[in-house]
C-alpha cells in the first residue's frame, strides 16, 4: 500500500536524522527492561533448579517429622510405607560446641543422622571421604565457618554435651541448605547412634525428629502421604513429600521473584514517564514539519503513524539494549540473593524472560508515547503558513480519554502479568496512581505558587530561576514525577528497614541483659547461679519454663480432627449456635512454654482483666492465667474462659483472668501464657538466667565455663543473635534495594533527558541574558535556583509519600511502632543536591558558548 510505503520511508528518514532526540526514550526503556529481564530470567532459572534438585532438597521420597520422638502410631506407619525401601532417622537441635584445644565455644545446629541419609543428593565434604566415614567412629563433620569461629582445625576434638568427637572434615555443600541459616549457628553432623551419649536431648529439650524414607520404586509418595496424614496429625507428626516441598518452595520463591519483579516493573513504568516526556518534547520540535506534511497532503493518520513508528522503533532499540543489560545483570542476582537460595541457580538466559522483556518494553514505550503523539493528529496545516497560529492544538483530542484508559489498563495488566494476581495488581496500580497524583499535585502547586508569589524582593537570579519553573514548555511536572517517585521508593525501603531494625535493637540500654543461659535443670540452677555470681555478674531470673499443651477449651477437648487450617470444636457442649467455634490450628496444637510469676515485666502491658494480687489466698482450680491478646484472638477465647492444659500428662484446669500485650521484639523472656504462682512449682521444668557482660571476651569465657561444667546448657550471646538478625534483614533489603536502584537510575535518566531537552532554549536564553550583561555566575545561579526548587519539591513530596507508606506498612503489615529517623532528611538533601548537580552539568553549554555565536546561529 502506498500509504504504508510513505509512512515507513518517512519514519526511516526522519529517524535517521532525529534518533538522538529520542535517546532518552531508549535509555529510559532500557533500564527498566534490563531490571525486568534480569529478575524474570533469574526466577525462571530458580524454578528449573528447584524442579531438578527437588529430591535432593528433601533427601528422601518422604519424611515423617515431629517435635517429639516418633510415637508408636508413626512407627507403625513408617514400618508399612518403608517396606521394600529404606529409613534413616535424623534429629536436629541446637547445642553448645566446645573445642578443648582452643577453648572456643559456639552455639551450633546439630544434625544426628543414621547411615543412608540423605538418600538423594549428596553432602559434599572435604576431604571427600569424610561423609562416608562419619559413622565409623566418634566422628563429626562440621561447616567450615565453625572451624574459623572456634579456631579449630580438622583432627581436633569437639565436645558436644557429654560426647567427645573427632572433627574428620568440613562440608562444602549441603543440598537444600539456605545460607542465612548459618547466621543462627553453624551446622554439625554426628552419627545417630551417638545421640544418646551426648545426653543433650533430655525431657523438654527442643529438637526436631524425623524419619526419612526411601520408598520402593512403585510407591506413590503423594498417595501415601494423603492416606496417613490425617491419622498422624493428632499425633503431631507431619508428613513431607518431595512434591509438596517443591510446590511450597516454588511458591515461596515465585513470590520472592514476583515482588522483586514488581520493583523492576516500577522502574519500567517510571521509564514510561521518560518516554512520554521525550516524545512530547520531540513532537513539539516537529510541529512545523508536521504542518508542512499536512499542507503537502499527508493525512493526520499518516503523520501520526510516521511519528509513532519512530517512537516504537526507539522503544524497540531500548528493549533490545535492555535485554542485553538484563542478561548481564542476571549474573549479579545470584550473588545478591545467594544466602536465600536452597539450590544452585544457573545464570543461563531465559527465552521467556527475554521475550517478555521485549514485549513489555515495546508495549510500555508505545502506550506511553501515544498520549503526547495525539497532538500530531490535530496540528493544523495552516500553521505552516501563519506564524501566529499556535501549532499545538488547544482542543482536547477525543481519543485522549480512551488513551488514558488504555494506559491505566496496561499498568494493571502488566502488574498482573508480573505478580500473577489481579487483585494485588489492582491495589498496586491504585497505589502508583495515588503516588503519581500526589506528585503531580505537588508540581502543580509549585508552578502555581511561584507564579503567584514570586517574591519581588528576592534577588533577580532567584526570581528568574523560579520563573523558569512555569515558563512555556517547562519540564516541571516530568521532573517532579520522576525524581519524586524514585525518592519515594528508596525512602520507603529505608524507613521500613530502619523501623524493623530499630525494633530489634537489642544492645540499646546499657542495663539490658546480653547473655541468656537456657535449659538449666532444677538441680543445676544453684551451682549455675553461683558460678555466674562468682564473676560478680548481676543476674535476672531464674525464669522457670514449663512445657505444656492445650487439651481442652471451655471443657471441650481439642485436637481430634484433621482439619488443615482450623480446629473445630466438637459440637457436644452447650456452646454457641451450631456448636462450633473456629480456632487457629497452630495455636491449638503447638507446645507452649509457659512460666509463672507474681509481677508483670517491662515488656508487657495489661489490657484486660486483673493481675493476681501478691500474697493472696493459696490458688485453687481453676487456676488463674494471663494470656497474650494476639493468642487469645487466635484461640478465640476471652476473659473467664477455661483452658485445660496437659502438663507432661497431668491435666491442669485454668481460667483466663487477664490479657496482656507483649512487645515480642524485645529479646527478653516473653510468654504467651503466664500462670499465677503456686501452681506449676512442682511440674517438670527448666529455667533460664539472664545477665549482662559488657566485654565480649569475658562473655566468651563465661559461656565456656558454663558449658564445661554443664554440657547440656545453651548460652546464647544476644549480640550474636542481633548481628544475625541484622544480617538477615540487611540481605533482604539489599535485594530489594538492588532492584529499587533501577528506579533511581531511570529517574536520573528522565531528569537528564528533561534538562537536555530544554537545553537549546536555555542556551538561547543564556546568550540573551549575557548580551544584556549577566555574568556566568549569575546564569549558573539561575540554573541552581530552578533545579534546587525542583529537587526540593520532589524530595518533599517523595519523602512525604514514603513516610505515609512506611507508616501504613508498619501499622498494618509489620504491626510495629513507627518512627522517622533524622537521617531521612539526608536522603532529601541528596535528592536536592543531585538534581541541582545534574541541572548544572547539563547547562555547561549555556555559559560556555559565546553569546554572538548563539544569537547568529538562530
Amino acid at each position, binding site marked *: 500500500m*502506498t*500509504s504504508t*510505503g*510513505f509512512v515507513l*520511508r*518517512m519514519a526511516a*528518514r*526522519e529517524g*535517521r*536524522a*532525529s534518533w538522538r532526540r529520542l535517546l532518552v526514550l531508549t535509555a529510559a526503556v532500557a533500564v527498566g527492561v534490563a531490571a525486568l529481564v534480569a529478575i524474570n530470567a533469574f526466577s525462571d532459572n530458580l524454578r528449573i533448579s528447584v524442579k531438578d534438585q527437588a529430591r535432593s532438597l528433601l533427601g528422601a521420597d518422604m519424611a515423617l517429622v515431629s517435635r517429639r520422638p516418633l510415637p508408636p502410631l508413626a512407627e507403625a506407619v513408617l514400618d508399612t510405607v518403608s517396606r521394600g525401601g529404606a529409613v534413616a532417622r535424623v534429629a536436629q537441635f541446637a547445642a553448645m560446641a566446645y573445642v578443648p584445644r582452643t577453648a572456643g565455644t559456639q552455639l551450633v545446629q546439630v544434625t544426628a543422622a543414621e547411615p543412608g541419609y540423605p538418600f538423594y543428593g549428596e553432602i559434599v565434604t572435604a576431604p571427600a571421604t569424610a561423609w562416608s566415614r562419619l559413622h565409623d567412629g566418634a566422628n563429626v563433620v562440621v561447616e567450615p565457618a565453625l572451624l574459623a569461629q572456634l579456631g579449630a582445625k580438622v583432627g581436633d576434638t569437639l565436645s558436644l554435651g557429654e560426647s567427645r568427637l573427632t572433627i574428620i572434615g568440613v562440608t562444602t555443600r549441603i543440598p537444600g541448605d539456605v545460607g542465612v541459616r548459618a547466621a543462627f549457628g553453624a551446622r554439625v553432623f554426628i552419627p545417630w547412634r551417638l545421640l544418646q551419649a551426648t545426653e543433650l536431648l533430655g525431657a523438654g529439650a527442643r529438637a526436631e525428629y524425623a524419619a526419612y524414607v526411601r520408598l520402593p520404586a512403585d510407591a506413590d509418595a503423594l498417595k501415601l502421604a494423603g492416606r496417613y496424614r490425617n491419622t498422624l496429625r493428632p499425633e503431631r507428626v507431619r508428613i513431607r513429600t518431595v512434591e509438596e516441598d517443591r510446590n511450597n518452595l516454588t511458591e515461596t520463591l515465585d513470590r520472592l521473584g514476583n515482588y522483586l519483579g514488581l520493583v523492576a516493573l516500577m522502574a519500567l513504568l517510571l521509564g514510561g514517564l521518560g518516554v512520554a516526556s521525550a516524545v512530547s518534547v520531540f513532537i513539539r520540535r516537529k510541529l*512545523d*514539519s508536521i*504542518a*508542512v*506534511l*499536512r*499542507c*503537502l*497532503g*499527508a*493525512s*493526520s*493518520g*499518516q503523520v501520526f503513524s510516521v511519528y509513532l513508528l519512530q517512537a516504537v522503533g526507539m522503544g524497540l532499540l531500548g528493549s533490545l539494549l535492555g535485554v542485553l543489560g538484563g542478561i548481564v545483570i542476571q549474573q549479579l542476582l545470584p550473588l545478591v540473593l545467594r544466602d536465600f537460595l536452597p539450590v544452585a541457580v544457573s545464570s543461563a538466559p531465559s527465552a521467556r524472560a527475554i521475550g517478555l522483556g521485549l514485549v513489555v518494553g515495546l508495549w510500555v514505550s508505545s502506550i506511553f508515547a501515544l498520549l503526547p503523539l495525539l497532538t500530531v493528529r490535530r496540528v*493544523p*496545516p*495552516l500553521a*505552516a*503558513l*501563519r*506564524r501566529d497560529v499556535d501549532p499545538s492544538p488547544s482542543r482536547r483530542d477525543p481519543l485522549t480519554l480512551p488513551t488514558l484508559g488504555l494506559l491505566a489498563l496496561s499498568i494493571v495488566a502488566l502488574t498482573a502479568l508480573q505478580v500473577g494476581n489481579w487483585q494485588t495488581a489492582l491495589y498496586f496500580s491504585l497505589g502508583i496512581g495515588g503516588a503519581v497524583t500526589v506528585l503531580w499535585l505537588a508540581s502543580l502547586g509549585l508552578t502555581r505558587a511561584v507564579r503567584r508569589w514570586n517574591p519581588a524582593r528576592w534577588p533577580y537570579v532567584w526570581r528568574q530561576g523560579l520563573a523558569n519553573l512555569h515558563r512555556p514548555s517547562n519540564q516541571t511536572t516530568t521532573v517532579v514525577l520522576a525524581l519524586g517517585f524514585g525518592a519515594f521508593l528508596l525512602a520507603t525501603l529505608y524507613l521500613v528497614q530502619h523501623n524493623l531494625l530499630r525494633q530489634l535493637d537489642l544492645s540499646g540500654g546499657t542495663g539490658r541483659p546480653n547473655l541468656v543461659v537456657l535449659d538449666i535443670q532444677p538441680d543445676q540452677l544453684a551451682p549455675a547461679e553461683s558460678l555466674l555470681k562468682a564473676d560478680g555478674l548481676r543476674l535476672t531470673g531464674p525464669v522457670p519454663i514449663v512445657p505444656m499443651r492445650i487439651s481442652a477449651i471451655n471443657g471441650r477437648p481439642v485436637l481430634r480432627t484433621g482439619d488443615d487450617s482450623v480446629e473445630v470444636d466438637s459440637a457436644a457442649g452447650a456452646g454457641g449456635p451450631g456448636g462450633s467455634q473456629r480456632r487457629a490450628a497452630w495455636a491449638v496444637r503447638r507446645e507452649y512454654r509457659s512460666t509463672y510469676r507474681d509481677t508483670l515485666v517491662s515488656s508487657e502491658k495489661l489490657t484486660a482483666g486483673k493481675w493476681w494480687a501478691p500474697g493472696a489466698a493459696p490458688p485453687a482450680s481453676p487456676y488463674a492465667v494471663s494470656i497474650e491478646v494476639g493468642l487469645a484472638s487466635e484461640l478465640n477465647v476471652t476473659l473467664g474462659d477455661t483452658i485445660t492444659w496437659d502438663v507432661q500428662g497431668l491435666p491442669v484446669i485454668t481460667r483466663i483472668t487477664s490479657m496482656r500485650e507483649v512487645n515480642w521484639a524485645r529479646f527478653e523472656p516473653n510468654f504467651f501464657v503466664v500462670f499465677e504462682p503456686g501452681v506449676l512449682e512442682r511440674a517438670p521444668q527448666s529455667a533460664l538466667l539472664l545477665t549482662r557482660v559488657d566485654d565480649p571476651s569475658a562473655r566468651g569465657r563465661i559461656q565456656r565455663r558454663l558449658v564445661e561444667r554443664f554440657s547440656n546448657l545453651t548460652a546464647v550471646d544476644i549480640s550474636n543473635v542481633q548481628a544475625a538478625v541484622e544480617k538477615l534483614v540487611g540481605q533482604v533489603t539489599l535485594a530489594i534495594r538492588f532492584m529499587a536502584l533501577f528506579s533511581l537510575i531511570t529517574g536520573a535518566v528522565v531528569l537528564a533527558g528533561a534538562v537536555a531537552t530544554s537545553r537549546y532554549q536555555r542556551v538561547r536564553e543564556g546568550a540573551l541574558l549575557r548580551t544584556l550583561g549577566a555574568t556566568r555566575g549569575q546564569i549558573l545561579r539561575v540554573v541552581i535556583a530552578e533545579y534546587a526548587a525542583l529537587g526540593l519539591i520532589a524530595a518533599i513530596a517523595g519523602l512525604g509519600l514514603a513516610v505515609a507508606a512506611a507508616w501504613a506498612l508498619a501499622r498494618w503489615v509489620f504491626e510495629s511502632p513507627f518512627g522517622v529517623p533524622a537521617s531521612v532528611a539526608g536522603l532529601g538533601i541528596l535528592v536536592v543536591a543531585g538534581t541541582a548537580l545534574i541541572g548544572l552539568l547539563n547547562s555547561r553549554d549555556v555559559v560556555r558558548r559565546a553569546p554572538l555565536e548563539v544569537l547568529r546561529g538562530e
Partner: protein
Amino acid sequence: MLRCEGLTQTYLSGGRELTVLKDITFALEDSGFLAIVGPSGSGKTTLLGLLAGLDRPSRGSVFLDGADLGGMTEDQRARLRGDKVGFVFQSFQLIPTLTALENVQVPLELSGRPADERPRELLARVGLAERSHHYPAQLSGGEQQRVALARAFANRPRILFADEPTGNLDSATGGSIVELMLELNRDFGTTIVLVTHDLTLAGRARRIIRLADGVLANDTAA
C-alpha cells in the same frame, strides 16, 4: 480552476468578533497567474489559507478544480492538496531532517507515485542537481526556496499557492525565484496564486487582487 463566493472569516478576539475577511468573491481561470496584494493585516494570508483549504471559512465557499472544499473533511482536503495543490512558503518550510532530494520526493510518495526521476529533474531544473543530498541547514535561503519550488511542482499540481515566496530573500535572489515560477507556470500550465506585498513582484502577474481591511478593494480583471 478556483472560485470563491462570499468568503468571510471572523475570529473571536478578547470576546469581540473580529472580521478578517469580508464577502470575497472571484473566480480564476486555468493557467492563470494571480497576485493578491495589500498591506500587512489586510487578510492576504488568511485568504490564501482558505483558498488552499488549510482552514475553514466562517461563511462562504471555495471550489477548487470543481470540488467544494466546504463539504470535505480535513483528510479529504489533505488528499486533494496532495493531488492538485503545491505550496511555497515565505520561510521555505523544508523538513529539516530530510535532504533536498527527499524533500522533493515527499509529495510524490504521499500520493504513491514513483519518486525517482522527477525529483532529480526538478532539482536540475532549479539548478540544484549537485546539491540534492544536502540538508536544508546546509543550503542558503535562495537555494532552500528553490528546493521548495521543486517540491511544489513535484506532483504536477493544477494550482500553486505561494505566500510571500521572496519575503525572506534579497531582491536579486527573489527575482530569480519569480522567474523560475513564471517559467514553470508557462511550461506546466500550473495556475499560480501569489500573496505578496512587493508590488514589483505582483506586477509580473497577469491579474492582481488588492485587499484592504479584509475587503476586496480592487481586481484588475474586473
